[in-house]
Structures are given as C-alpha cells and as structure tokens.
C-alpha cells in the first residue's frame, strides 16, 4: 500500500470514487452491449439476407438498412450525444446521467456492430448456404444453423472489437454526466492536475480491454475448426 500511496497520492484517497466509476463504466458497457448487440445483430443479419444475391433478397429493405447504418456511423459520437438528447429524454425520461448515456451509446455502437456482423457473415461460403438450400432448409434455419454457426468465430472476433470500441465511447459519456472512468480521468484527474487519477483510470480501462480481448481470442479459437 506504500507503493500505492507514493505513486498515486490523490487516487489512494478516492477508493470509493474509483469503485463507483468502474461500476458505471461496466454498467454502461454491459447494458449497451446487450441492447446494441441484439439490435446490431438483427440489422447485420438483415443486411446479409436482403443484399443482392442473399437468401431473402430485397432491394428496398437492404437500401434502407444500409443507408441507416451509414447515417448513424457518420455522426461523430460527441455530437451524437447532444443531437440525440430529445430522444434520450423520451426513452429514459432524462437526458443526463449514466442510464441516459446508454441511448446514445446504443445508437453509436449498434450500426458499427451491424457492419461487423455483416462482414463476419459475408465470410460464410456461399456454397455452404446453397448446400443448405438444396437439402430443403428455409431462411430461418439457414440464419441460425448455418450463418450464425459457421460465422461464430468471426462473430466473436467482431464482438470483441465492438466491445472495446464501446468502452472507448463510454469514456466520452462523461460529457453528459454519464460518469464512469473516462469522466473520472478528465473531470477529476485532468481538470485538477491530479494526473495520478488519470493514469489509474486509464490502467483500469486497459485491464478491462485486455481481459475482453483475451477471453474473446480464447473463445474464437475454440469454435474455429477451419484449420
């Protein structure tokens, strides 16, 4: 603890703040991951099956999804936080706070995840889809038993990527009172020149990111039987 007191003189007195901030970061990340995960997965699958040559080819639906994803992805997140405020107020009742931050986080990360899923599923060999069709599989069976099963390793890898970029986004949520480690690092550490707070917050984020990457890699390797 001496070492801690020596190098992190301010942080050591803020134990409860760090615990709370870490909790907020994890809360925002997990909650957003679930909502944006489901949404992004659905849109990603929608893009794959309705694209030209897909199993439920539909130009209109594909174009709408495609444009929607591009639109959401082209808005910088810091601006999105402000632009989306009225919608946030509509959904959660307030535009400020940790839970309020989840709305822009979802809108910021779901389209990104949708593209990742689309890319992962595009890697599934078209011949395999055709083979499934030739034995009488319908669209639902092909989505769940072929696309998601065959693409699983790539889906895990894209999920890791999205999750890490999501943690990146939560750091910005401090701007609207979302709290979290990013907020602690900037509003406390940086503003008060207590740089040890900033560094500790960064280290905790690093540990979380490394843990996600490690678990993701292990899982992906387990389900990958291509070689």
């Amino acid at each position, binding site marked *: 603890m001496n070492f801690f007191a020596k190098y992190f003189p301010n942080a050591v007195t803020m134990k409860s703040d760090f615990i709370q901030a870490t909790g907020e970061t994890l809360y925002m990340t997990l909650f957003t991951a679930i909502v944006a995960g489901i949404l992004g997965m659905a849109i990603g699958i929608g893009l794959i099956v309705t694209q030209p040559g897909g199993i439920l080819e539909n130009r209109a639906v594909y174009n709408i999804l495609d444009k929607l994803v591009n639109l959401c992805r082209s808005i910088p997140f810091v601006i999105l936080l402000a632009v989306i405020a009225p919608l946030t107020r509509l959904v959660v009742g307030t535009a400020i706070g940790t839970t309020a931050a989840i709305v822009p986080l979802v809108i910021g990360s779901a389209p990104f995840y949708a593209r990742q899923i689309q890319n992962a599923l595009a890697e599934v060999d078209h011949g*395999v889809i055709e083979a499934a069709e030739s*034995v009488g*599989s319908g669209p639902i069976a092909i989505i769940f038993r072929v696309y998601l099963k065959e693409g699983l390793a790539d889906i895990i890898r894209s999920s890791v990527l999205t999750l890490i970029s999501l943690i990146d986004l939560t750091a910005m949520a401090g701007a609207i009172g979302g709290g979290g480690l990013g907020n602690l690092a900037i509003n406390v550490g940086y503003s008060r020149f207590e740089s040890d707070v900033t560094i500790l917050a960064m280290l905790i984020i690093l540990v979380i990111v490394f843990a996600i990457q490690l678990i993701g890699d292990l899982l992906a390797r387990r389900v990958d039987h291509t070689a």
Partner: protein
Amino acid sequence: MTNEAIIQLKDIDVTFHTKGQTVNAVKNVSLTVNRGDIYGVVGYSGAGKSTLVRVINRLQRPTAGTVSVNGQAILNLRPKELRAARTKIGMIFQHFNLMASRTIADNVDYPLKGGSLSRAERKEKVDHLLDLVGLTDKATDYPAQLSGGQKQRVAIARALANDPEILISDEATSALDPKTTSSILELLKRLNQELGLTVVLITHEMEAVKEICNKVAVMDEGAIIERGSLVDIFSQPKEPLTRDFINTATQIDQALVKIYKQADKLDLGDTQQLVQLQYVGDQTDSPLITELYKRYGVVSSILYGNVEILQDTPLGNLIVVMSGEPDKLAAAWDYCQEQGVRITHLKSTNSEVA
C-alpha cells in the same frame, strides 16, 4: 431400367442481366431423365450445364419453360412445398460445401434437423449413412481434417440423408485426382444400383461419363447439341464437339498425334491407306483383320488399338495401315461396312489434327 420420366425439363431458358449485359446461359433446352438413369451432361465450362441442372431443384429459376420432378411442377410450388420437394433431390458440389464448424456426423445430420425423426433415430440414420460411404471412423472429425475424396463422401452422405430419389452431381469430381474420382464414381454407381437412385452428373470430363453413365447430353453455348445412349454417342458421334470429348476420353487424340508424326516416315504409297476402324459389341470378337487378308489379300498393320467397355458393350477402335491394290482396298472397305464396322479415312498428313 424403367422408362418412367422422373425429371422433365421443357423449353428451359435462363437469361442473366448483369450491368446492362444480357447473357443467355441456357437456350430452349428440353431434357428428360428416366428413373434409374445415370444421365451425364457434358460441356466445357461456361456451356450452361450447371445453370441447367440447378433449374431442377430451383436453385436457379428459369426465365421460361417448365420443370417437372416426380410429377410435381417445381416452378409452381410455394416456398414450403419447394423445401419439401428439395429434400427428395440431393445435390453434391465441386467444392463439397461442408460446414467447417460441424463434425462429419453433424454435417450428415444437418438435413435431418427440424425433421420428424427423434434424436436416437437420427443418430442411427447418420451412422448408417457414414457406413454407406465408408467413413464411420471419421464421425467426430471436422471437415478440415479430411482429404478431398473423403469430403465428397461426406457430402454424398449428407445429400442422401432425406432418402432422395435423385442425386445431382455438379462437377463433383472435378477437384479430385483421377484415382479418387474413380472411387467416387464407383460409389455413385453403387448407390444407383442399390438404392435405385437417379443420378444427373455434370462434368467436363468425358472419362467420368464413360465410366458410369447410361445416357449423355453434350452442351455447348447454352444448348444441348447432341444426346443419346452412351454407346450410341460413343460409337456414332455426330457433332465435332462430341467427337472432341470422346477422342480425349479414349485417348485416340494422343495416339493420332503420334501417328501423324510418324506418318512421314511410314511413307505411304498409293496402295496404302491409313484408316480408323470402329466397331461396337459382338463385332469386337470377329477376326476382321484375318478375314480382310483371306478375302481380299489386304494386309492391315495395326498402329493403335483400344477397346472400351461401355455399359457392358465393348467399343473398339483400331488405327491401321491397309495395303493392297486400290480395287481390293475398296472391296475390303465395303466388306467392313457390311460387317457394321465404321471406317474413317485418315489423311497421312498433319492437316486433320489442329
């Protein structure tokens, strides 16, 4: 073999529109396959043969025409009915198209998922299918661990999971080495005989057709240019392309090239002629060469000989130099024709092979 039609394609057109270009992949093709046939569709790549057979299970919807499989009008089926019909039309592919994330047993089990069988019944069926294709010991392996021939056997087992009456083979042996190709073709033949499976075999190799098919159609530029029983096509090909395919398969082409090279040295005079003799069935057994000498004093020296057994019918090819007086030679040729032996006069120059 019965004469009941199991697949009837009528006036099929398939047209693709890509970037302002119109490609007529299949042009007004009709094809009837009878129950128990092993029907070969031969053509170079781009001839439209894959597109044509994919019309059978509606993986490709034709621009025009009608498709009847087992009496069902395939083009009028609703999605659910189509899926049910597809379970009775197995298909195997050039690149096997197995699922890398599933074990061999799981790949074979895939078509049975969501069906009416219980888990135990499915397991029994998968075991039986793996036994049928000789891969029982590979059940828990993944496709990446198997050789090409083994992968194709898994694909065949998968295609047979729902007890189809028809198996479509889309260039299934084109990615395999000759020995593995033979073993896969043998397996298809066995399935045809033991299960009464009707096979439609697409290939660019006449050798494959020669080994197992009883009927052949030759495709070129989206149309069937020639069709018939294997023996008829091999013994009396009409189109130049068909002849090309057959000569490659029987290796007469290679022999001719060598013979033509040699022809200068042979120094053939007026009394000598280079001819190709072709005979089918029983004539293979009669001592033709001896007869020609006895009757007409014509001496034949054999440069090349080959006998193919097609559907239990022997088909012989001889390339000989016949020597004799011109009138005797003419008489000898007439005699050959009377005996049902086809004679082709080959020029002793290189001009015919190009």
